[in-house]
């Protein structure tokens, strides 16, 4: 019975596990990819994973604060994307490539 109930009854745990998996995917992207823009996208993936947790908690706890937090996270994420892309553009203008290794030397 346990096995079927895991598949048919969706609880908070399901959402949390989904969130954890997505977060790990984003983290793997941050650690492994070399393209700066893909890194930024991986960060967005992690933020989205966290958002899922927030909304899931908000739903299952019956408190709206989680959704407000998601709202804030979205705004910050948009801002972060804007700055990150601006950085990427300036890096691209200089090196004609957006590899993370151009950030290793923080001079010039």
């Amino acid at each position, binding site marked *: 019975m346990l096995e079927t109930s895991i598949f048919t009854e969706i609880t908070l745990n399901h959402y949390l596990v989904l969130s954890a998996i997505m977060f790990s995917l984003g*983290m793997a992207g*941050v*650690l*492994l990819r070399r393209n700066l823009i893909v890194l930024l996208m991986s960060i967005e993936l992690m933020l989205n994973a966290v958002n899922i947790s927030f909304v899931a908690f908000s739903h299952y706890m019956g408190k709206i604060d989680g959704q407000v937090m998601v709202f804030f996270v979205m705004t910050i994420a948009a801002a972060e994307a804007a700055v990150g892309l601006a950085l990427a553009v300036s890096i691209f203008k200089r090196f004609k490539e957006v590899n*993370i*290794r151009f*950030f*290793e*030397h*923080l001079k010039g």
Partner: protein
Amino acid sequence: MLNHELLIAILLLSPLLGFFINGIRFRSSNYLIAGAVATVAVGISFVSAVLLFLQLVDLSPENRRLAVSFFEWMAIDKLRVNAGFVVDQISGIMILIITGVGTLIHLFSVGYMHHDKGVTKYFAYLNLFIFNMLILVLGDSLLTMFVGWEGVGLCSYLLIGFWFSDSAKAAAGMKAFITNRIGDAAFILGMFILFFTFGTLNIHELNGLAPTLVESSWLGAVTLGTLMLFIGATGKSAQIPLYVWLPDAMAGPTPVSALIHAATMVTAGVYMIVRLNPIFIVAPNTMMVIAIIGAATAVLAATIGLTQYDIKKVLAYSTVSQLGYMFLAVGVGAFGAGMFHLMTHAFFKALMFLGSGSVIHGMHEEQDIRKMGGLKKYMPITHFTFLLGWLAIIGIPPFAGFFSKDEILWLAFSSPSGHWALWAAGALGAALTAFYMTRLMALTFWGKSRVDKKVHPHESGLTMTIPLMVLGLLSIVGGWIGIPHVIGEYLGHIPNYWEHWLEPVIKKLPTSDAIVSHQTSTEWALMGASVLIASISAITAYWMYVVRPGSSEKIKKAIRPVYEVVNNKYWVDEAYFSWIINPLIQTSKSLWYYIDVNFIDKMTFKVADMAMGGGSFLKVLQNGNMQQYAMYIGVGVVVVLSFVLMR
């Protein structure tokens, strides 16, 4: 009627606001805006000071005390200090003097400083000074007072070195600052001792806790504490041995000399002692030291004043001398007389400084009185007001200085802790004062003109003469509120308002009731004697410098050795240098070389080398690759999380 808390807030914050406004736009050289802002700021303070004083008058004499506490500043175990401010009989008078004279001097400065490029900065400093001075006099605890004490020291430093591109002037500022530091260190020590003894720094509570029994030992806590505070006061108020900074402080703009180095800041030491008079009174040894130092300063500074040729230096030594009088007064327990002289001195000395400023301004920055003379006809208003100041300082009745100085001399003689020698010193000082002041008048305004042909002296503008006139008036009438009993009764029962006013906050000397006020004949005689001595001295000076201008040179030759000693200011500065400062510098240098360079530095270099050696192993980890950094974070999270979960 406005709430007194609000009034005190306005009183304090108005100059601070002026400081911020002028401080933010300090690059501007528009003297009108800067001057208007600063003067109006202090003017508002003056108005609120007057309103506060009126409220104070309305209260009954026993509880004339308007206290306010804005917030708790610090609370460390027993030490609880509020940002509290008190207006009582003493500080009420002080705020009137500070803001009143301050307003006049701000007004004067508008005219005096109008050609200067840093005029906005100047006014900002001036307003900051007023703010700090108000904190000093209003602070309800020694610590709050100390904040103002340091603040005025800072402003004094900034304003003495205002023209800091001249290295001599910048050095004068540093000298004032460092000399004051010595005194301030002693002040802090005094605070420590008093706090250990009484467990509080609140002035009101301290005065209430003052022991009733007189402490005769030299090493008693109260004696030591008050002595330390007095050393602090000698620094701020330019007494022996720390008076050397004040004559040099004349490097600043003349209105600054008038405000800070004559009327307000330098009297802070006297004010502090008067505030704490119940404490000081139980330490007769301290009082004796204060009286002796005061008398000695009065005479010493006056003798130096005889030989100076710089108009402002003469006035500076005169200030030191007059401050000596005030300390003489508080030293013999005549706190009221000390405060009285403080007030009248603020009027006439500010007047004379401003007058000298007017002269310097009219003479195009010439300060040497040998190059003046006969200025009477060029600047009549300045001459007339200066004349009033002169009459006041040499103690001619009924000018302000007469009443205050005479009361000091009489109490120096008659008070239980007084002595005829103190009176004699005071009288000698008065005679010397009369001499050098007359000499100053004669060389500056009277006699034949020795002015350079290229210089065309002129009278100053209205912004400068109006303060002179107001202060001149105050120099005449300022003393009338404290007419001694003997004269008052003779003239028809004019009461001594001053004494009545201060009575609730001034403690009498323990055994003073028996002797005072019975020897009216002695009082008359001494009064007459001092006036007579001063007059003779003044007439002699007049004869020497106006009637027979050459005679002074002859006398100079006749007493050459003595003259040399005095003219070189007793070599005090040189002595300080060769006995204190240079040995200190030598010691420091050897300490620096043998201890610091050869021992401590080498040790630290060894440690640094070891750290670098260790770092070279670890620097592999820090290769600038951000993803590796992120990996460290990830590994760290994994470790922490597994630790938490395994537990």
